[in-house]
């Protein structure tokens, strides 16, 4: 589902921008938001995965039209094209960081459907101020012919955007998976944990204002994203607190790099909507590539680590000082847990209930439970390491196109 939405966004962004140029950004944005809201409603009411995927694809079409047209509408609102570009780029970066946190909160507090249903009033509210522009466009009709000319897209900036987006998608997607599937946190707990990234992104946005040179901001951002991902790859313990420093680096980094590269890709280029479309396309193509490239690696690793962790856990049980008959009882219960949660990282706590009443045996069993859980946590955490390292490398390699990306006045 994630891939289909991003794929449609990647493919539709530039055509949607061209359409916005033809029919007028006000009308394109209004229609785009209406489609986005309608498809969001369909997503929320979907009774099957296939319906949900189709509705998400339609939603991506509407989203592409609205987001690219917004770039044409912003200068009139904020006063200048440069300011519009900065705001548009920063909004994109903040949205990327905020998504998992808000999604997790809504899923736990209400339902997954609420994520989509809440988009309906949000999109309709956003459409209200655009309606007057759309009406004006409908009345005046034709767009100035010179505005239809388009320059070449900024290849290096867009290439860097795609690479960094692939790495950031890995950071967001894999971290949420690690927390929920690996460490067994609830969606709301995971949402609270990953809210560090959007908060750090706000700091990144402030830093962006202090440094004028976009290439330096992009390079610093890519390095921070890479460093944060490497930190997640080498977590020394399965503790939520240890994910905070890497998340801060990723959050600050993504804000710096996404906004700087978007500004570079748009700088001095016209029409803005079409070049904005290229950046949207590059970012979402990067997300698709990142997910498609890293998912099989991560899936293979989690199966391997599950196997290794279960073997290590069995060794812990066999070598424990617990009475052999009790040990066998526990081994049977743990085996049942593994059966019940086949393919997942198992929760082994219930296998140890009720704890023995004898204090010595109880202490031994509690120690055994702790050691067994430690082995499972090690496996669950290590299963994500290769994917995080590859994502970190991708962010580092993005430094090459960043080095070649200059803001060109056309």
């Amino acid at each position, binding site marked *: 589902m994630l891939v289909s939405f991003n794929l449609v966004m990647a493919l539709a962004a530039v055509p949607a921008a061209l359409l916005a140029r033809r029919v007028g950004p006000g009308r394109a944005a209004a229609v785009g938001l209406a489609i986005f809201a309608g498809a969001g409603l369909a997503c929320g009411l979907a009774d099957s995965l296939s319906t949900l995927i189709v509705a998400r694809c339609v939603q991506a079409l509407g989203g592409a039209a609205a987001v690219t047209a917004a770039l044409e509408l912003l200068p009139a609102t904020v006063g200048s094209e440069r300011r519009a570009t900065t705001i548009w780029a920063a909004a994109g970066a903040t949205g990327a960081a905020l998504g998992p946190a808000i999604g997790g909160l809504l899923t736990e507090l209400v339902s997954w459907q609420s994520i989509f249903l809440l988009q309906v009033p949000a999109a309709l509210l956003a459409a209200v101020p655009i309606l007057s522009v759309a009406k004006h466009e409908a009345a005046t009709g034709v767009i100035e012919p010179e505005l239809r000319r388009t320059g070449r897209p900024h290849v290096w900036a867009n290439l860097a955007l795609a690479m960094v987006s692939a790495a950031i998608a890995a950071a967001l997607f894999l971290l949420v998976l690690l927390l929920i599937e690996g460490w067994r946190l609830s969606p709301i707990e995971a949402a609270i944990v990953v809210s560090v990234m959007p908060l750090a992104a706000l700091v990144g946005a402030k*830093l962006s204002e*202090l*440094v*004028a*040179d976009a*290439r*330096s*901001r992009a*390079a*610093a*951002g890519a*390095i*921070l994203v*890479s*460093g*944060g991902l*490497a*930190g997640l*790859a*080498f*977590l*020394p*313990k*399965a503790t939520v607190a*240890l994910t905070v*420093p*890497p998340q801060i*680096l990723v959050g600050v*980094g993504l804000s*710096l790099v996404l906004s700087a590269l978007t500004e570079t890709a748009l700088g001095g280029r016209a029409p803005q909507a079409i070049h904005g479309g290229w950046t949207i396309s590059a970012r979402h193509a990067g997300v698709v590539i990142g997910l498609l490239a890293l998912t099989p690696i991560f899936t293979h690793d989690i199966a391997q*680590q599950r196997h*290794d*962790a*279960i*073997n*290590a*856990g*069995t*060794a*812990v*049980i*066999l*070598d424990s000082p617990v*009475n*052999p*008959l009790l*040990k*066998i009882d526990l*081994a*049977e219960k743990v*085996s*049942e847990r593994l*059966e019940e949660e086949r393919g997942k990282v198992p929760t082994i706590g219930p296998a140890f209930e009720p704890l023995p009443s004898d204090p010595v045996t109880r202490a031994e069993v509690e120690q055994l439970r702790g050691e067994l859980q430690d*082995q499972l946590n*090690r*496996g669950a*955490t*290590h299963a994500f390491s290769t994917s995080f390292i590859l994502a970190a490398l991708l962010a580092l390699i993005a430094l090459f196109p960043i080095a070649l990306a200059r803001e060109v006045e056309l």
Partner: protein
Amino acid sequence: MRGRVLVIGAVVASLVLVGAYLAVGGSSYTPEKTQNPCKPRPWSNPQSLGEIANQFTISALDGAACKLGVSRETLARALATPEGRKRFAEKYGITDAKLAQAIRAGLLRAVDDAEEAGALSPFLAAPLRETLQRIPLQEAIELIQNAKSLLGNVQSFLGPASGIIEQFLP
């Protein structure tokens, strides 16, 4: 100049974070590797017949796993439940008869290990070995119906000799 400071700051922050995580074991936070069952495993210092039976069972598992070419842990899980044994047989193509033969070989290895560790006198080890070699295959198959019966059988097997064994306990 500010741009350069930002880039240097990013490099330093990244290196400090990764360096700190690696320094406190970030690269070795993986599940413990399981030991090759064919390599001798040191015996703990058994203090009672129950502990000897436990140690003996673990040695027997090592010996049987070595014979079958699987890990001790895989074999232990196979013996934990009847479903586990069925799945094990399907995955590795190991019949009950082959498994029973391996368990018999494992028990012999356990006698060797116990003797080597000084937990079993050579005077006792020789007749135990003889008895094990004479266990009919069908009885050996029954022995592996589940882990509890395996341990129970080890205990009943050691039981008659317990008086003598206990004399040799440290």
